């Protein structure tokens, strides 16, 4: 790290340690490295996790794979990022 020699006088102590977030905020700002079963789509799995955790927003990222009509997608692992709970 290259530090700039400038203090931050008069600033309060805001924010919180990412590893000690309050549980709701922890879930909203979290990711899951999920080993998705073969069969259901990533989109479906994301929706299930969303319901289980009572979150408003859950997204997924992972392997690029084109779903062929009539064929289910295979094994994939993906990360889910829950955000914005209510």
């Amino acid at each position, binding site marked *: 790290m290259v530090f700039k020699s400038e203090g931050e006088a008069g600033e*309060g102590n805001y924010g919180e340690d990412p590893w000690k977030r309050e549980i709701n905020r922890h879930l909203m*700002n979290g990711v899951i*490295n999920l080993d998705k079963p073969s069969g259901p789509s990533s989109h479906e799995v994301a929706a*299930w996790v969303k319901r289980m*955790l009572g979150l408003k927003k859950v997204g997924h990222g992972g392997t690029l794979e084109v779903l062929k009509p009539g064929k289910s997608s295979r*094994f994939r*692992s993906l990360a889910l990022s829950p955000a914005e709970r209510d």
Partner: protein
Amino acid sequence: MKLHADVSEDKIREALLKFQGEIYQKPPLRSSVKRVRRIRKIYKVEPLEINGRNVLFRARVDPGTYMRKLCVDLGYALGVEAHMEELRRTKSGVFDEKNSVDLYDVYGAVLDLREGNETTIRKIVRPIEEALAPFPKVVIADASVDPVCRGMALRGEQILAAEKGITAGTEVVLITKRKEAVALGVAKADCKDLPLSENPFNISRVIMDAGMYPRLTGSPPV
């Protein structure tokens, strides 16, 4: 990968090796990106098992490489055609198979959470900061956190520290003094010039919700 006709093992190994390096790929018909030929790097292809027409291999590739397409192209190279039978992502960024969990783990942790036990869910859901670990970090002043969350540009003088090695074009993560992720952005200048710049980053994605840090006006956080 499943080959559509018999090929000798040597030929298969040879073809796999030949695909290492930069290759052209055109996204498939049903894809979410524009279908223009693009270059992707195949860092490593390792055959794990060859059993008749079934070939199991491990490939380390650039983001946005279509594996199904790679199999099809390998088939053409071998002159027999082929398709992808099964795909498994074993590693991506900081995530790999070893630290992954399954849906039952998630469900178990949710049940624990409902009983008031947070320990298991905290092991399964990890802070977003862990996923962003590979990005170089730029520490910004507390006063500029909320404005950035609300979409304002970050001024150079608000940078407290910037990781060495950042050059123009580097994708970085802006963090607070407490190491919370604020936003992702692309540096417009080299590390040492960033603090002098009026608008040093193209901010691509805001991560933190507005309201976590006090507003510019100095009013206390709600």
